[in-house]
């Protein structure tokens, strides 16, 4: 294996670009799991659903998938509200979220995957956009636009979310729910409504991340499973409930994965994120920027 500067530089750039995408994938979990304590392991399933919706619309009308996902994000928002309603009524209110709530999300993950399999089969689907095959070059370093465009939109989304959460009244209410629900209730704010809104927001980000995914790589229904470990690894590594931590964790995992596929081979890449997760859980469960 040749260990040249160009190779290393390219791996770093690819890792950072990938990390930007990972931030979009994980920011939803950072909200739902980190702030609301809703362990939504079905998050990747919504991402894949977002990919397929972007794919269908692109196939029919030729619109840009990322644009489509942004326009359709209210749809995912509504879906998120619905799911949180069911989750709250059936599990959270009865205090059964730890076991049955988890099983519920696992079931949703499974149903989404099998339904997509039944409709679309096991073929890989990819959306070709006009920038898909363009690569900018800066010296020896490649900047493939299929990674740069999702990277840029994703960063804008994550930073926007952070600003929304820290600056607006409703955003601060979400952060307050994360810290003390009882206090919120004493101030005559309904924590359930705030959580419903925040959870819906997290599902909306999943829809957008799905469009990024299908621009970056071909998508197949069961690919979502590989992202379960990734999203939790990013959130736990960065620190639960911290959006900046999620961004940092995403960059670290992106770099780690890019270096593994460059120097060890892509078949080892899935083990990186899960290995990181196991290590983070075992040695530093509070994360790098955790509260």
């Amino acid at each position: 294996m040749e260990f040249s500067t160009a190779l290393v530089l390219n791996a770093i750039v690819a890792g950072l670009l990938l990390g930007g995408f990972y931030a979009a994938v994980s920011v939803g979990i950072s909200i739902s799991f980190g702030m609301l304590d809703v362990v939504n392991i079905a998050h990747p399933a919504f991402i894949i659903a977002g990919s397929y919706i972007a794919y269908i619309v692109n196939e029919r009308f030729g619109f840009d998938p990322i644009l489509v996902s942004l326009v359709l994000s209210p749809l995912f928002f509504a879906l998120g509200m619905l799911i949180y309603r069911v989750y709250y009524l059936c599990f959270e209110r009865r205090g059964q979220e730890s076991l049955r709530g988890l099983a519920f999300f696992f079931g949703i993950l499974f149903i989404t995957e099998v339904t997509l399999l039944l409709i679309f089969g096991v073929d890989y689907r990819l959306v070709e956009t006009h920038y898909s095959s363009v690569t900018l070059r800066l010296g020896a370093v490649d900047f493939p636009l299929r990674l740069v465009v999702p990277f840029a939109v994703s960063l804008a989304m994550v930073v926007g979310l952070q600003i929304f959460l820290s600056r607006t009244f409703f955003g601060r209410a979400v952060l307050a729910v994360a810290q003390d629900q009882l206090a919120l209730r004493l101030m005559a704010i309904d924590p359930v409504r705030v959580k419903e809104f925040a959870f819906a927001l997290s599902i909306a980000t999943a829809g957008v991340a799905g469009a990024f995914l299908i621009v970056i790589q071909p998508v197949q229904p069961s690919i979502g499973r590989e992202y379960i470990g990734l999203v939790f690894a990013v959130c736990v590594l960065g620190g639960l409930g911290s959006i900046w931590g999620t961004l940092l964790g995403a960059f670290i995992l992106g770099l780690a994965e890019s270096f593994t596929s460059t120097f060890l081979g892509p078949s080892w890449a899935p083990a990186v994120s899960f290995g990181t997760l196991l290590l983070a859980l075992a040695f530093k469960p509070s994360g790098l920027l955790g509260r």
Partner: protein
Amino acid sequence: MRNRTFVVIVLVVAVALMAASRLAINDYYFSAAYTVLQFVILATAWNILGGYTGYVNFGSAAFFAVGAYTTVFLNKWLHAPLPLMIVAGTVVAGLLGLGVGYLTLRMRGVFFAIATLALAVVLYTLVVNWDYVGGARGAYIILPREVPFGLPRYVHLLYATMVLMSAFALIVARTIERSFIGRGLAAIRDDEIAAECSGVPTLRLKLLSATVSGALMGMAGTTLPYYLSYVEPSAAFNLSYAVNSIAMPLIGGMTSWLGPLIGAVLLGTVQQVVQVTVSSAWNLLIVGVLLVAFVTLAPNGIMGWVDAWRRKNAS
């Protein structure tokens, strides 16, 4: 019912099931019964940690596959006999359960659940990249030509083994449930901090239950290579094992050994029928829908209905 009586009853049923196999005309029934029994073990094993202790394991497929791949490995390395491989696979999967438990059971329960999800993918990647056991291509197992005990075909022996292993799993689960261990686990499930304060050795009991649960799942997988005579990673790590071993106890009821048994027999049989009459993708969809339906609408499962009916009759 005392433990000894229970053991006798289970063994009598097991012998009856083995004897009944003599009546089966078609080999399909063996493979159907084998699959259902495999799920009985997986569901019972999952319930030891999930139902008794309240910790969700999403990695049943990983433990199952560890059992299967221990067999593949030993078969290639030593040409070991079947009983030795069953013991080895059980031990290795048990150690894996202990290891994962040791790393994550000290934290909040949800971290254990996430770690088990991760475990399945890490092990899958390892096996795919491990050429000795066939890698992504898979491995062939050549069945011995001689079938012991004068049985007509090898599948008969595998079926009998599965019956005995299911009986063993049920006895283990019920013994745990009725002993001081089971009471300790129930205390952890209901309120871990209160249990710790009352002197229940929570971590040790959780580790014990993770080990036993993992070991039984591994045991269910040890005969898979012989049953399929060809194993590949995506077959051994199939997500359907994970989802079934969660769905079955939830549908049957999680508080006693009977729930997973009922759930596994019911759901396993339904799946066999659907698989033959419709398709295997549909049968997975049915499991998923049933899982979500039961968990939202009937959280205590079928045993919950039975208990409610009993209570009504008693009063």
